């Protein structure tokens, strides 16, 4: 490939160029900033107090909606409780400033803190339940929150609400804006930028991976639970800022301002605008809040109806939200499949690997399974399975469908807990280790259906995780660096199945694993690609000392590249040996036996 030649030459430029913002978010952030800035500044500068206030409130709601969008669009969590978090912050701010005379700045900080605490409480169920269960738990919280405030009126003064005198309101700093307007505008743009940054960052990628496939996340050493809590924390922070800003803008807070309808509005704004888009929430807030409440004020009785009809109509005609659907149209218009995008061989720096091979020369067992058993619904998927994989060795694992291969891979990578038997990684007992721990300890794997993430670029898919330190790199940093420009511009959605497989392998290799478990890596690859893959695997195992377990149906490939082959059936070893030792009998057993055990793959 083209990258290969110059990769070796420029190998000194090790670190990859840092891109703060994804290409598509850059455009959206620009548009968003212009729209928010213009709608805020123009009315204020021209002295339209009403429209100034309308868009300042819209911006506050926007901050909350963007925060929810980070939770919804990036981390895949549903929350109907954002209105309550917003309210908690606003109310705490007002209580501090209005009842206890705390300075407004400090009071707002207290409000944000209250939002974080409340958000943390709300995120606890997310560790247990997902999807609509979470939606209803958060709805319940949002319904109960104002009621509880009122129930404790002697402390909260919730029945009549709290007035807060805020110094400096109304005294213009510039362009008709007082400090509150400046703060709101600043934070609104900051929220958009923060979303764009998170979306472009490793953290954002990890969130999306954890949302799309918790197993893939674990196999990459990412904890989905941690990602959820982090997302709730970030969104509570943003929503808290929004709630705190509400107080100086209005100078008054009462629980009536945070009905369940507010939480629903935030959620609608995100979904109707287009979740995970940067400007989606702007469209959502403008369409669902500003339009029915402020633009169409003449049609008093029809305010609710307009709101409902807009939301419904957009979901019918723009199923992924207004901006989301437009983005899909643009993608369909402009994107062309680019094959082949991903190729492993050019990324492997042979000289570097050769240097490694001296240290890793001794063949030692890196992975060992003894007497593993596991059954599903009374049928043995693993029935006393044993296996040894040495460093620098490719171990072919073959057998008919349902013979237990995938169960074994799952047991090795920690997704399936063995009923009995032992797993040792590098001589250390790892039977009870979590999938994440194994991943961090240098066990990399791929999946039968590649777990790549359609909406991310190729580059983002590769750069999901931090590279483990302390292990020598399998891929050439310089070559990776050179591929960056090309990879950044292509979304995975346009790649073929085979390309996605290779991409998944590249990603695993980037983490410099000591053990590599490959589940049918050759499926979907063209014949030339298969042989190239075989060569790369050989190179990696021989030179870098990686122990490879290769589950593959292309027996020719297995027989060509594997150092050792184990034929499995009914959860046991049927034959094991070098390709030369195994005769036709073993081959035919794999091809035609077709007996199997229950297995969940």
């Amino acid at each position, binding site marked *: 490939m083209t990258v290969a030649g110059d990769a070796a030459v420029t190998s000194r430029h090790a670190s990859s160029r840092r891109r703060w913002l994804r290409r598509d978010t850059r455009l959206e952030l620009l548009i968003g900033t212009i729209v928010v800035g213009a709608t805020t500044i123009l009315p204020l500068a021209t002295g339209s107090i009403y429209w100034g206030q309308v868009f300042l409130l819209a911006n506050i709601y926007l901050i909350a909606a963007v925060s929810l969008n980070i939770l919804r669009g990036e981390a895949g969590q549903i929350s109907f409780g954002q209105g309550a978090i917003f309210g908690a912050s606003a109310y705490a701010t007002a209580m501090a400033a209005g009842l206890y005379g705390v300075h407004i700045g400090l009071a707002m900080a207290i409000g944000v803190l209250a939002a974080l605490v409340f958000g943390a409480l709300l995120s606890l169920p997310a560790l247990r339940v997902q999807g609509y269960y979470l939606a209803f738990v958060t709805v319940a919280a949002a319904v109960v929150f104002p009621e509880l405030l009122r129930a404790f009126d002697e402390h909260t003064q919730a029945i009549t609400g709290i007035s807060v005198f805020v110094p400096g309101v109304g005294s213009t700093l510039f362009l008709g804006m007082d400090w509150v307007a400046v703060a709101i505008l600043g934070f609104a743009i900051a929220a958009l930028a923060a979303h764009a940054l998170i979306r472009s960052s490793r953290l954002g990628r990890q969130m999306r991976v954890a949302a799309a496939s918790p197993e893939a996340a674990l196999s990459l050493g990412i904890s989905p639970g941690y990602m959820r809590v982090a997302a709730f924390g970030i969104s509570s922070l943003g929503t808290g800022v929004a709630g705190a800003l509400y107080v100086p803008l209005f100078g008054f807070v009462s629980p009536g301002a945070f009905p369940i309808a507010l939480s629903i509005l935030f959620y609608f704004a995100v979904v109707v605008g287009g979740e995970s888009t940067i400007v989606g929430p702007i469209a959502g807030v403008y369409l669902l809040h500003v339009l029915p409440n402020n633009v169409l004020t003449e049609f008093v009785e029809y305010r609710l109806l307009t709101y409902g009809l807009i939301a419904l109509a957009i979901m019918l005609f723009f199923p992924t939200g207004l901006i989301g659907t437009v983005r899909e149209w643009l993608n369909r218009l402009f994107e062309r499949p680019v094959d082949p995008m991903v190729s492993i061989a050019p990324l492997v720096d042979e000289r570097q690997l050769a240097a490694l091979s001296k240290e890793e020369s001794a063949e030692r067992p890196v992975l060992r399974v003894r007497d593993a058993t596991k059954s599903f619904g009374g*049928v043995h998927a693993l029935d006393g399975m044993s296996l040894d994989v040495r460093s620098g060795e490719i171990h072919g694992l073959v057998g008919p469908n*349902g013979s237990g291969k995938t169960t074994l891979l799952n047991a090795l990578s920690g997704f399936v807990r063995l009923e009995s038997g032992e797993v040792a990684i590098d001589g250390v007992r790892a039977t009870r280790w979590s999938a994440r721990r194994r991943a961090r300890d240098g066990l990399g794997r791929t999946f039968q259906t590649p777990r790549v993430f359609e909406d991310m670029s190729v580059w983002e898919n590769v750069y999901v995780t931090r590279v483990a330190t302390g292990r020598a790199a399998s891929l050439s940093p310089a070559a990776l660096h050179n591929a960056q420009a090309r990879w950044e511009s292509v979304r995975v959605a346009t790649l073929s199945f085979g390309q996605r497989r290779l991409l998944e392998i590249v990603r695993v290799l980037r983490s410099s694993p000591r053990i590599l478990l490959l589940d049918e890596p050759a499926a979907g690859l063209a014949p030339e690609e298969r042989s190239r893959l075989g060569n790369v695997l050989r190179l990696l195992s021989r030179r870098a000392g990686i122990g490879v377990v290769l589950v593959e*149906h292309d027996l020719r490939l297995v027989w060509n590249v594997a150092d050792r082959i184990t034929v499995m059936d009914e959860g046991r070893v049927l034959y094991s040996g070098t390709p030369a030792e195994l005769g036709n009998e073993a081959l035919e057993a794999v091809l035609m036996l*077709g007996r*199997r055990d229950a297995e969940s793959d």
Partner: protein
Amino acid sequence: MLSLTDVHSGYGRASAVRGVDLDVAPGELVLIVGPNGTGKTTLLRTIAGFLKPSQGSIIFDGRSIVRASPEALARRGLRLILAGHRVFPELSVSDNLALAKLSLADRPSYAKRVETVLEMFPILSERLRQPARDLSGGQQQYLALAQAFVSNPRVLLCDEPSLGIASGLVRSILEFLRELASRGVAIVVVEQAVEAALEFADRVVVLRQGVIVAEGPPAEFDRDRLRDLFLGAGR
């Protein structure tokens, strides 16, 4: 009964099935074999209406069915039994059987057909009231076959009937399919247990990378030939 001409099909851009011609007559049991990932399942799902072929024609009963939905085809007598002994776990065995009425044209014959099939699978008649999730994998596969039988299909497509069930039960399943064929049903079976299945087939079709590479009576296929066909020429 069923006639495929130059069928191409697959998920996404890549075609897993690339130009398959196939004719199946009533009472004939066709066995499709081939290495994993060569498009066998894709082919069955395309015939059954779950996938639309990107090219080619499928004629059932003299009419093109490339646009028909799976449910419409089932009601017209073309049924697919999905791989992995898929039954409705929360429904009782008898309720699972009752769902056959969805595609059984001759409703009055239902009781008789149930009686017949329970004689063939006596284990099911012992467990009629139990939810299907309590059955073993093999029994669930029996149930799936029995339900298909009761719906009286004219074409039965069967995807890996032995997948995920104890090896001792494979024969009984194939015997059942043979019995069905003898009653005039056109049957297409995709099966990995090639050797076990060979003796029950009227015709064997070998699929490799989406293309038919060999076709003929079972007697023409011995171990060596199959191995070579599976691995591709030259090994």
